[in-house]
């Protein structure tokens, strides 16, 4: 039992890293732009399909393919921000939910038309290869996925906390109006933040596509999980998204061993509700006082 629990906890940490990566884009976009991008799940699935195409057509490994898909998704993100988000001048927070939901439906429709509703998976050699660890085995794809998440999240933290542009992003996250007043190009920062969010979706999508069979409808389940992560972590907090993703996946995997797999999600939501009762702003969120 102890070995099984340890295995579940390790697997939870490794898969939690992947969810942290996918949720980081969502929370970054909220922090900078104050919009909830409910299309993030669909964009992750789009990323998975891009990796699928590269892998099936040109036999490019999904991890290597990120050199193509991440820049491509970054550019798509910048364009989407310019076309769909920037025109929203009033009631931005509410309207953005509708706009990004429409975006998700549009992506789902196009993917369904091109790829049909069939489930796809990326069958790479390391999805059955494993390494021994503490007396049990861990599938290599989870190890590679976690390493990728560490690298990308590490780079994201470096950009945010060690560069001038990162300072501009953080300033915009803290107070959009004040940032504008001191000369920061918040529109430009927003477009780049949206692009970064898409690039992380591409990376998350590649790992998601290897570990899970997916089809164009898979984004519904995914976005509900990602929203849960950023609510628990605190909207707009990158550190919160990472911690919350790890809590969610470790809790679920351990609960599936201790109780039963079908109760794992329930146990996590009990924890979520308990945290929100004590800290409504989430683990690392900041209480905002709104003027009425």
């Amino acid at each position, binding site marked *: 039992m102890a070995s099984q629990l340890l295995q579940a906890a390790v697997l939870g940490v490794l898969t939690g890293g992947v969810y942290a990566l996918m949720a980081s884009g969502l929370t970054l976009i909220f922090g900078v732009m104050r919009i909830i991008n409910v299309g993030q799940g669909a964009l992750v699935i789009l990323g998975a399909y891009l990796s699928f195409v590269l892998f099936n057509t040109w036999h490019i490994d999904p991890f290597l393919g990120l050199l193509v898909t991440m820049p491509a998704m970054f550019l798509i993100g910048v364009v989407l921000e310019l076309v769909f988000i920037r025109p929203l001048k009033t009631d931005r927070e509410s309207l953005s939910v509708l706009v990004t939901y429409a975006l998700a439906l549009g992506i789902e429709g196009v993917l369904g038309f091109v790829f049909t509703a*069939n489930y796809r998976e990326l069958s790479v050699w390391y*999805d059955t290869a494993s390494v021994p660890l503490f007396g049990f085995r861990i*599938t290599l794809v989870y190890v590679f996925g976690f390493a990728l998440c560490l690298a990308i999240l590490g780079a994201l933290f470096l950009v945010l906390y060690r560069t001038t542009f990162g300072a501009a992003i953080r300033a915009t996250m803290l107070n959009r109006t004040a940032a504008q007043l001191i000369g920061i190009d918040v529109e430009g920062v927003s477009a780049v933040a949206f692009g970064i969010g898409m690039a992380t979706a591409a990376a998350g999508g590649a790992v998601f596509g290897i570990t899970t069979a997916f089809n164009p409808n898979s984004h519904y389940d995914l976005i509900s999980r990602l929203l849960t992560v950023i609510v628990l972590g605190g909207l707009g907090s990158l550190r919160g998204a990472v911690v919350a993703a790890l809590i969610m996946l470790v809790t679920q*995997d351990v609960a599936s*061993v201790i109780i039963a797999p079908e109760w794992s999600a329930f146990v996590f939501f009990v924890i979520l509700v308990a945290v929100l009762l004590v800290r409504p702003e989430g683990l690392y969120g900041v209480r905002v006082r709104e003027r009425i």
Partner: protein
Amino acid sequence: MRRPLLTLFAAFGLILTACGSSSSPTQAGPITIGVSLSLTGDFSSDGKALQQGYDLWAADVNARGGLLGHHVNMKYVDDASSVQQVQTNYQNLITVDRVNLVFGPFSSKLTIPASTVVDRYSYAFPEPAGGGPDVFKRGLRSIFFVQPAAVEDNLVSYTKWILSLSPRPATVAYATEDDPFTQPQVDKAKALLDAAGVTSVYYKTYSSEPIDWTPYAQAVAHSQADVVILGTQLPDALAFVKYFISHQYNPKTIIETTGPDQGADFSGKLGANTEGIMVPAGWTAAATAYGNDTFVSKFIAKFGGKASDISADAAEAYSVGQVVDQAASKANSIENAKLIDALHSGTYNTVQGPMSFDSTGKPQGGVGVYIEQWQGGEPVFAYPSSVAKKPPEYPKPAWH
């Protein structure tokens, strides 16, 4: 005022009567057979295999002059593996497209709602893949399950084989989708093995919707059971095996209700690791049943590949055509009511062997379902010895 109203009612009456009756072909004119198939979604690989079987039969029967002289056209509509869509499809096939006959879709899950719609219009509903107990519980007279045995008996041969082994395996782990096709098979196998004293160390049902199967695979692997019995469709069949490979858990024997019978769709993802994996099967390419050699050779000629690539679904669909062909000859009619009467009596020869049907459409007196095992890169009948091409590999070889 009253006369136009009466005329309107009469017109409605005529329209409703026309909708309620099955379409009759003109003398020796072409006929259309409608089928809702899962060409996309969860069951898409099975749906496409069924289409191959139906197409092959239609080509065969047309080459022989048609079904009682009627050239057969097949009309397929995609149900996307959806319970709602399959009902709409049969409703439209019958009332809008006015097809002459209908054949069944894939899975008990879709056949059950579809058969309710089809029965409402008094169409015969021969079907290749809906054999769960719930299919027959409703007592519909129009449905006919064209496989050698009712689904809940699919693992009976396997349990007999397990109990014949010496020394007998000590422990079994079970995991199954909560699906009307898979769960009854696994539950019956469990009841038989429990009664014989083989210890159950894990039993779990899980959602038939695509989920993360890792926790279930992990629990099965952790049980270290000698025998693993899984109630799967193709995606979870692959997921479980991949987990077992990556965690180097190699049970002495493993059987999956569906997945290993999917030919290249299964072996293409696992390669040499298919070796030793079992599946209950009523059909194999090497069987000597009625017309099987012709079916296999024509299938390869039409679709390419090799005999081991042929999905059992295709053979089951082809059998539906064979049964209807013989029933039409027996009734000397392709009227649905006469076909239903004919199918309730007599025995019909198929590539899966001979079969007849009871009053609820359940197959009777068939040859039973055997054990097929992947050996040397192809699925072969391995049990019972009366049909076995090769003896079962036991214990199964280590993963590659």
